[in-house]
């Protein structure tokens, strides 16, 4: 447990120094690796302990605590729970992305100081300003879904990059599908 805590701290330091070095175009991958500082500092391991628990392995009253809420908090930070993809010309949040909404709404309701930016994107087809507005619709649709599950408006800002920041280069449907998205980013 201690080793993981130190590793997390180390990653924070790395990320911070990267920012300070003027590395202003943080790539999507880097964002996903930035860990969230955990409150209790514990994780689930066999025979592991939560804060304040009886840690004496010889005790006959020891109960191991398995904390599923913490696991879902950490899981929400994984890459595949940070992005919602959209169909062409659509800003509907499809059912298959419910887990993304659920996980992030949970994080926000548990910690009211946490803020998220929802960044909407489109594929490369079409005008820049119209696509900026379409991306905005996607971001707002995700924001609305989060709000319906308890996130408060002040924790959310929906913004758009339109077609200006593609995740994948290419002019085929495979690339376009990966660019029609909304990303949830810590603010």
């Amino acid at each position, binding site marked *: 447990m201690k080793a993981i805590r130190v590793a997390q701290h180390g990653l924070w330091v790395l990320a911070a120094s990267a920012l300070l070095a003027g590395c*202003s*175009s943080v790539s999507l991958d880097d964002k996903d690796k930035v860990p969230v500082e955990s409150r209790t500092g514990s994780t689930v391991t066999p025979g592991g302990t939560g804060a304040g628990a009886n840690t004496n392995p010889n005790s006959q009253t020891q109960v191991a605590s398995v904390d599923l809420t913490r696991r879902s908090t950490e899981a929400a930070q994984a890459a595949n729970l940070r992005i919602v993809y959209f169909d062409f010309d659509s800003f509907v949040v499809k059912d298959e992305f419910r887990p993304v909404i659920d996980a992030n709404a949970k994080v926000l309701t548990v910690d009211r100081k946490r803020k998220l*930016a929802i*960044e909407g994107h489109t594929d490369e*087809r*079409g*005008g*820049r*300003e*119209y696509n*900026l*507005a*379409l991306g*905005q*619709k996607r971001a*707002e649709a995700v924001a609305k879904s989060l709000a319906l599950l308890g996130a408060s408006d002040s924790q959310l*800002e*929906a*913004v*758009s*990059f*339109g077609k*200006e*920041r593609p995740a994948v280069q290419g002019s085929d449907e495979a690339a376009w599908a990966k660019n029609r998205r909304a990303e949830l*980013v810590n603010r």
Partner: protein
Amino acid sequence: MPTTQTALAPTAEPRRRFVLCASAALLAPAWPAFAQFRVEISGVGATQVPIVTTRFRDEDRTGVSLSGIVRADLERSGLFRNIDTSATLDETATPAMSDWRAQAADALVGGSVTRLADGRVDVRFKLWDVVKGREIGGQSNVVEATDLRLAAHRIADYVHEKLTGEKGVFSTRIAYVTKGGGRFTLRVSDADGEGGQVALNSPEPIISPAWSPDGRELAYVSFESQKAVVYTQEVTSGKRRAIANFRGSNSAPAWSPDGQTLCATLSREGGSQLYLMSRNGDNLRRLTTSQAIDTEPAFSPDGRSIYFVSDRGGGPQVYRIPAGGGTPERITFVGSYNISPAISPDGRTLAYITRLGNAFRLYTLDLSNGGTPQALTETNDDESPSFAPNGRLIIYASRSQGRDVLMTTTLDGKIKARLVSTTADVREPVWGPYGR
């Protein structure tokens, strides 16, 4: 030293009727060192004045081919056809008119470049009517050595105005965005694409530049703070301020013709709607109230209405609303996707982009009689049209051989010039006003 005109009173010359039998794609001569663009011209104009511009005395000493710039400017306008010569003629010459008539020239330009004691340069030229065998007029223009290109553009403007009766736009400037090497720049260059200077250098995207009507400022959208924010920036000083940084996205800035009001697309109340504000960002008021996307505003030249794009009818179309608010009126009816409106300086022509299948193409529509839209190009990735201040040319971005390029076209689509960037992708051109 003031600009002086010669004693001979100029007369307005009617355009010579001239039919060309051959079309040619011409490459302008490559200038040494500083050329960021090449000018490639294609197409045939119906009526073009055949003109000879000789080399100017001593222009070789400056490293700037003033006569070459004049030739390229006149060619790009679509109203002139250059006749080649290797001759050098200065403004004091008495040209042998019969020789020039034998080369089928109607007009002749010669000049000289003289360095003054204080380091400035005196650029002089003369314009002759070859058919009538007499001077039309000429000027002396004293400029800093760094402004030789501008002096050449002014000569082309003079020739254009004397021989066609219309103001030339060669002394104007354009602004555009480049993307390359992971960086974005907002640049200002001469209308021929040369002499580009960086106004803004950013690791994040820049979109939607817009010139203030007095040509002193540029408004644009920058993503430097990880969202769309509208800035205005003084071109000469670089001083900039965030004009619209409300919650959500702020974009598509447009200046009113008197320069006192900006219209922009804001998502502060949800969705994308048009708002008006004063030029320093105060006095915010909402202009459109729909549940749709309303964006890409463009003021009419009389300032009384604002054209914009709305998808309130299903797909994006061009609408017009009174600048003081009211009910929008739909303007485009052909096609399911019409965006990026630009209005000609006389208010009579709308230029815009239509989606046809997978192609995005530049079209114009006559606003006075609402006739059939006219295609100006046959390319498939056109965007961002902008009128020259004399209303005779449109600059737009397109795609050629995998690169973003800037193009100018005459309003009938017949004469096109390609300003090709050799280093980075270029997009979002906007044509600046008169005034240099």
